[in-house]
């Protein structure tokens, strides 16, 4: 194909203060293709797409759409040029119907009725053309995420998008929903649309794209035909060196249970039961993984066990001591006193105070430890000494305890949290999304550290939405769906099998459930 490319970027540069987020980016996207852009968090993918969609202006460089040089000053201009975007976090009004959401911002006239009628006909046409079936009168809040995403795609198509940008579209989807999404993208491609797929997941790139461009540290380092490349090559390009994609570990030798959860039920602030009568245990010397699509109760489970959230009912037995998880006086400090560490799912929201120095963050939650006090005052010398020791042991860079944690990279921030929690020698460690937004180099390190902790005979409960991570680390996998544990599998669980469970398909392998889970 030698026709004019749908999108062409030439020497795009963008800086935020001292951070050069995009450096001389060149990109050619062929019309009617699925073009993947892959890179670690912070590589500059989102910045580049934001420039293309008019959220940011490039400092210099040219954007060509269908061969013509354009300037995209805002998202309205982008839509005018036939560029549509499906955001990572959906931009939908929950209590509006599908139809109303599609029309929102493109009503055409002051009175709604005409626009809505036209939209209904148009939606019907799109539905048939692209096999994007959604009930136009359903409320968004009643739709599963997979369908909500479809509404986002419909919104873009309704605005006659020729180029569709999808930013990390599978983060919230089950594997089956993700596969379905890729089928839709295929249909779009066959109808002549161009798709730009932004992701950090290698598997998706291999499964769905025709061409892939790799970004690293603000630069476009390579563009490959997908069929002529491999996961290993792409990983290497992303990180800049060769990486180990698998975790080396011996089979677990689990001993007595260190954590036993009984009949745990959690209700959220809206009064919805988010964890429903969940019971399981974690034994010393094993990693129990909790798989599930984000939003099926895992976060609430983790927050309840760590004392942050109050349960409606249920108990937890840790080191033989039974704790009523619905007791109102319970807080995170109590759980730390019981020798339970917690690496929270979101280090920015919970794990770290990013305006604090590294050494201050290194005692967050353990600041009441008498070892860090001298009389009425805190013993800063002792705190810094401890921080420096952790920095060395975990190879945290830059090695400066006085630096604010906001100025560390994602991987190093995560190491700060991990060091803090592991070095207090917990009997049980709760870990949520340990490698979210972490570069591949640090992922290796973090995984190795968790396996080491397991081999020291500690119990680890791992919650992750990355199925690969669950499969690589866990000795036992529990699958959560709609607040329940719907199945249990051993260390060598198959992806497809887990995927079905995650999608809520009834488990026929009941024996495993009764066998190991309590």
């Amino acid at each position, binding site marked *: 194909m030698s026709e004019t490319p749908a999108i062409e970027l030439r020497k795009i540069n963008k800086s935020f203060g*001292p951070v050069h987020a995009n450096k001389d980016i060149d990109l050619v996207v062929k019309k009617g293709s699925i073009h993947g852009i892959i890179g670690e968090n912070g590589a500059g993918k989102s910045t580049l797409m934001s420039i293309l969609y008019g959220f940011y202006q490039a400092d210099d460089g040219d954007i060509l759409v269908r061969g013509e040089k354009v300037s995209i000053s805002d998202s309205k201009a982008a839509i005018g040029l036939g560029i549509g975007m499906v955001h990572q976090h959906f931009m939908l009004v929950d209590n509006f119907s599908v139809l109303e959401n599609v029309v929102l911002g493109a009503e055409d006239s002051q009175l709604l009725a005409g626009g809505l009628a036209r939209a209904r006909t148009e939606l019907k046409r799109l539905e048939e053309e692209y096999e994007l079936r959604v009930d136009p009168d359903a409320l968004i809040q009643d739709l599963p995420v997979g369908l909500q995403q479809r509404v986002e795609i419909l919104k873009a198509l309704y605005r006659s998008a020729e180029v569709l940008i999808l930013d990390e579209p599978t983060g919230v989807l089950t594997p089956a929903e993700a596969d379905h999404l890729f089928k839709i993208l295929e249909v779009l491609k066959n109808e002549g649309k161009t798709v730009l797929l932004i992701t950090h997941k290698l598997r998706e790139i291999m499964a769905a794209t025709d061409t892939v461009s790799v970004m690293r540290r603000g630069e476009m380092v390579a563009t490959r035909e997908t069929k002529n490349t491999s996961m290993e090559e792409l990983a290497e390009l992303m990180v800049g060196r060769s990486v180990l994609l698998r975790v080396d570990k011996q089979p677990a030798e689990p001993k007595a249970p260190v954590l036993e959860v009984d009949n745990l039920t959690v209700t959220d602030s809206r009064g919805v039961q988010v964890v429903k009568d969940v019971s399981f245990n974690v034994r010393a010397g094993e990693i129990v993984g909790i798989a599930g699509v984000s939003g099926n109760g895992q976060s609430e489970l983790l927050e309840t066990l760590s*004392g942050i959230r109050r349960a409606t009912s249920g108990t937890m037995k840790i080191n033989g001591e039974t704790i009523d998880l619905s007791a109102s006086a319970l807080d995170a400090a109590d759980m730390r006193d019981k020798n339970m560490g917690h690496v929270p799912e979101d280090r920015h929201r919970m794990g770290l*105070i990013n305006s604090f120095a590294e050494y201050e963050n290194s005692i967050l939650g353990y600041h009441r430890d008498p070892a860090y006090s001298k009389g009425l*005052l*805190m013993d800063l010398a002792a705190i810094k000494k401890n921080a420096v020791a952790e920095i060395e042991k975990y190879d945290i860079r830059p090695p400066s305890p006085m630096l604010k944690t906001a100025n560390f990279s994602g991987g190093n921030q995560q190491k700060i949290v991990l060091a803090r929690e592991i070095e207090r020698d917990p009997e049980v460690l709760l870990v949520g999304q340990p490698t979210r937004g972490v570069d591949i180099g640090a992922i290796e390190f973090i995984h190795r550290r968790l396996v080491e902790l397991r081999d020291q005979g500690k119990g680890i409960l791992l919650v992750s939405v990355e199925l690969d991570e669950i499969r690589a680390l866990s000795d036992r996998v529990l699958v959560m769906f709609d607040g329940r544990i719907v199945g249990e599998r051993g260390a060598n669980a198959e992806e497809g099998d887990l995927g079905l469970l995650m999608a809520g398909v009834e488990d026929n392998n009941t024996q495993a459930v009764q066998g190991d889970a309590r």
Partner: protein
Amino acid sequence: MSAGQLPRWVDLGLIPFLNLAAAFLVSGLVVVLIGENPLDAVKILVWGSLGYGEGIGFTLFYATNFIFTGLAVAVAFHAGLFNIGGEGQAYIGGLGVAFACLALDHYVPWYVTLPFAILGSAAAGAAWALIPGWLQATRGSHVVITTIMFNFIAASLMGYLLNNMLKEQGSMQTETRTFEAGGRLPLLNDLFPSFGFGYSPVNLSLFIALAACVLVWLLIWRTRLGFEIRSFGANASAAVYAGISPVRTIIVTMLISGGLAGMMAINEIMGSQHRLLLDFVTGYGFVGIAVALMGRAHPVGIALAAILFGMLYQGGAELSFEMPNITRDMIIVIQGLVILFAGALEYMFRPAIVRLFTPAQRLNPKEA
């Protein structure tokens, strides 16, 4: 994304200086518009506040008030709370001082009364902040709303108490009796005659205020409680994750904040007025917000900002005396401009300065 780290002297010295310079530049333009010579105005303002012993005395007297109310606002800031009830807390703090002085002044010297007055003022101010703090902590009622409502309640309550209970019998004045020597703090002019503070009311409270600066610094940056307060203020969910109780932190912080505001009454009541009277706070509580903003919630910055506002108060009074065109309202305009540039427009010069002080080629790719 952080704004990039600046050298400390830039962050704490240059930027406030630029903000202040901009405020005075605009003020100068206003003076020109009124038809006066801005340079003469500056001369009068500076001379009036720093040019002679008595002027300095007045400046320091006002600064003492501002230090207390500024610290009160700053402590709450660190917990992410905006206590704008310093006015009412200081007013009620006056009750604590007055009770101590009225009870003891006949029997003991001032230095015996003083600890009781400090405790009384702090306890009364803290008590006045307790209800807003408790409501915020347990009911989520915003302290900005409740503390400002409590300012009005304080005004009404004090009016009632002074009119009906505390007024001297047979007197027409809504004030208590004048304290005896046992209820009066020594003036600095009596302690250090050589400085020539003259008839200015600056008194021993100045040192109490400076001691409060040191104690607040220790509290915020050197104690566990301070760590918890700052943690909660910087990231409330991380604080909960760390086992820090939001309810306890909010209430304790509001108590400390209210207590500091209440202590302002020591300077006014025991140091200068020697009696409890209506409306003695006259806006010091509100100006404390500006002092805390300008001092960037740091005790050293607050002490400096308090002196600056003391200068504006004292020099401004002289200015309106010397240049009748410039009324007291004009001084309030200048104060407003300082607040505008130091607080609201704090980030106006910052981006340019960040660019100036960080080499552009330093690549620092993070969550972009």
